[in-house]
């Protein structure tokens, strides 16, 4: 067990009463997600890889009906959990957040404007990055050139669905992207609709974790695309995803009242 493992085990099990700790640790010369049980050796824990633990948790959560789970959370993970909990997909009382502040390098890689979790348990708070260089470049391009740029990027999409499968806030049971109207079967690359439908659909949920971009088999700069759509959302509705309380304007009636519980999850 390395120092980090000891520290995390102490925080999770001794101080905060968790039954499980979800973290990344070294296994077989690689870094593996692990659901560590109370009393078990935490092993050589690593926090230097941007794994989306919340997404990994979402997959197993329905199968683990009892016990409190501690999760290592960066600011984006914390915000993703807020979106998940607001939709009653997980129970806040069963979750224990262990705050991880991202390194400067990670903040730069994510062009992240909000890198510090509400409580820092591990790491040191670093300054945010205000600009996404590619976004700045695209903003200065003509609409035609922008279209050309995205068309050539989207040509590399092979419909792996990694951008949805690895996204911590993609939680619809029936994915709109599997709808044949938007995404006819067989053909790759899929049409513009695939990316634009996803883009719109995520704009009140996306917390800019960048996992879609990191896992994109085509190497498409999806995080920039996300940031641009989120910026529109903010301009038009004054809304940013990830807040504990504030509900998406898309989840309210025309009069601005909240939709009935469970009426709209996605």
């Amino acid at each position, binding site marked *: 067990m390395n120092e980090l493992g000891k520290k995390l085990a102490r925080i999770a099990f001794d101080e905060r009463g968790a039954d*499980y700790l979800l973290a990344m640790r070294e*296994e*077989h*010369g*690689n*870094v*593996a*997600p*692990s*659901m560590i*049980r109370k009393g078990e050796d935490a092993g050589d824990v690593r926090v230097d*890889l*941007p*794994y989306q633990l919340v997404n*990994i948790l979402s*997959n*197993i959560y329905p*199968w*683990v009906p*009892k*016990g409190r789970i501690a999760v290592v959370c960066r600011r984006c993970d914390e915000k993703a959990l807020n979106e998940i909990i607001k939709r009653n997909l997980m129970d806040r009382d069963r979750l224990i957040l262990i705050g991880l502040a991202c390194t400067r390098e990670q903040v730069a890689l994510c062009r992240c404007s909000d890198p510090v979790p509400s409580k820092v348990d591990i790491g040191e708070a670093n300054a945010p990055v205000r600009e996404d260089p590619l976004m700045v470049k695209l903003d200065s391009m003509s609409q035609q050139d922008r279209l050309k740029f995205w068309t*050539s990027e989207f*040509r*590399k999409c*092979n*419909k*792996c*669905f*990694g951008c949805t*499968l*690895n996204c911590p806030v993609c939680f619809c049971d029936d994915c709109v992207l*599997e709808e044949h109207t938007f995404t006819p*079967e*067989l053909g*790759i*690359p899929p049409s513009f609709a695939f990316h634009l439908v996803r883009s719109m659909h995520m704009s009140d949920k996306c917390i800019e974790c960048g996992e879609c971009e*990191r*896992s*994109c*088999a*085509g*190497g498409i700069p999806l995080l920039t695309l996300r940031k641009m759509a989120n910026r529109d959302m903010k301009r038009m509705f004054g809304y940013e995803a990830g807040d504990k309380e504030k509900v998406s304007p898309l989840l309210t009636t025309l009069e601005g009242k909240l939709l009935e519980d469970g009426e709209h999850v996605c």
Partner: protein
Amino acid sequence: MSVNHVLTTCPYCGTGCQFFLQVVDDRLVGVVPCKTDEISQGRLCIKGYHAHAFVHHPDRLKTPLVRKDGQLVRASWHEALGRIVSEVKEIVAHHGPDSVLVLASAKCTNEENYLIQKLARAAIGTNNVDHCARLCHASTVSGLILSFGSGAMTNTTPEFDNADCILVTGSNTMEAHPIIASHMFKAHAKGAKVIVVDPRETPLSRMAYRSLHQKPGTDIAWINGMMKVIIDEDLYDRDFVKNRTTGFEALKKVVDGYTPDRVEQITGIAGKDLIDIARTYAKSEKAMIAYAMGVTQHSNGTNIVRALANLTMLTGHLGKESVGLNALRGQCNVQGSCDSGGLPDFFPGYQKVDDPETVKKFEKAWGVKLPHEKGLTLTWAVQQAAEGKIKAIVAFGENVMLSDPDITHLEKALKKLEFLAIVDIFPSETALLADVVLPAACYAEKDGTFTSTDRALRPVRKAVDPPGEAMPDWKIACELGRRFGVPGFEFKSPSEIMDEMAGLAPIYGGIDYERIDRQVIRWPCPSKDSPGAKFLHAGSFKMGRGVFAPVEHTDPQEVPSPEFPMILTTGRNLFQYHTGTMTRRSSKLEREAPEPYVELNSKDAKAFGVVDGERVRVSSRRGSVSLAARVTDNIIPGTMFIPFHYAEAPANRLTNPALDPIAHIPELKVCAARIEKG
């Protein structure tokens, strides 16, 4: 409640991506990519993401089955194994060991393939052991062994990232090897020139610097044509040719006949394009070629592979990082099943079965007398079975009834057998014809190793228990070996099997489970202190000099005729895998590609009065299938394409079993056919 993440290797294509299987109490619930894996780098294709989906499918075989009174009925392991051994022994006693064929499998681990070939050679006494590599890259193995002395991908997958020219031919890389394409994109983003030569417009060709379409079966002509341009314009690597090769003068003479005009006539590729790609390829410093079954599945497949080898030697594009000739192999362990000796002419590690010294070495190691003659290839053996010369087949995980050419003929051949035993995870089309069916564990239910297309040893780790009474193939092979009464089948774990194989196959000499558990090692790895090899043929070839083999263009065995005016070519799509036994049981994959179809050009569609989506009948000299038409401009006029995944319209009812004379690979890529309404 236990939750585990088990790092293992994808059971689909040969890229060898690693991922974590999410396991909750012996049930697979998901797949998580592995960001630290050097090959997949945290990315997967849609098949990889759903690799857990078929594992718990209710159709899985759970108990042995034995045919009684014409019916397959449930039996004990004892009875089923006993039946195989007694029937095979009886046939050997009457007709000799060479009346038996054993099929290894590119879906089984290295350790299992090692044992399967040992079972054939040491327990049954025949070199008749082969597997489906015969149908995909046999011509790569035979062609490259002749040209370079070693029949494997010369580079590693991550080396594509830094290439500055990538020539892709006969490979629909984005669909068949998505994560290798992902590496190519990295090079593309840095400005690499991607050249695609393919009869179909593939997704990759749309982002290519040049996308050229040749008529199917005319590859040697354009490759020779490139070489002529390169020699005429003095763009070849004189030092490399002088110091590292033989046979240049003969090559020069043959390719001289391939002027751009003549090439245009034969292939349909415009002369100016040919000249352009020849210059681009020759002048690039880091030039890589990637090819797949569009090259190999021809009756002159070995020669096409040799033509590509000539091109790399001529330009000196070999033996350096991000420079080389790369066969992209189709199945998770097709590289390893060849390495482990699942071939009729090679012991493990490509050691010849007809070399007396080698035979002696294996006889000593295994403690039995071994046959000295090469065995029969899969495709050849099937023809022998039709003539009644092969009496029994024991097949591990091979669904030959969909993957092999001309299945009507094949079915007859299988029905003629006196005995057929199948080991598989699902009741495949082939299993239904068998006398004994044994239930196997799938990749998620056993330990072992696969060898990826780029020669990396990739651990396969057990995540869940096999269903019912199913057992891993290595255990089944051990049980059979023991029952045949020969020594050397007492293994307790796959790691022990690897140790034995490493001791006998020098290219795996330094491999053991402890090393590969934490490191990526690629063969050749002759000793424990060897780190393995990244790119091959640096400095010299295994056999000293590389051999130029001048090859001439020949027409495919079948050319269009008035009765069959079209060329039919076959292949796969992204969402299904091979004969579909696994993917068609994964709902997300089946959703993408549920139905068999034939692609044809809109001009041809008009000429034949066919509209998109309409039901049509496609026929060749061997049979016909009924399926939906997909009208597209992604395929050149005069050519049709059918993927071979679908049992309800098997493309291989139509294909031509004509064989390459050296590799015995069938001509799956070209036959003459016609299309009609209805």
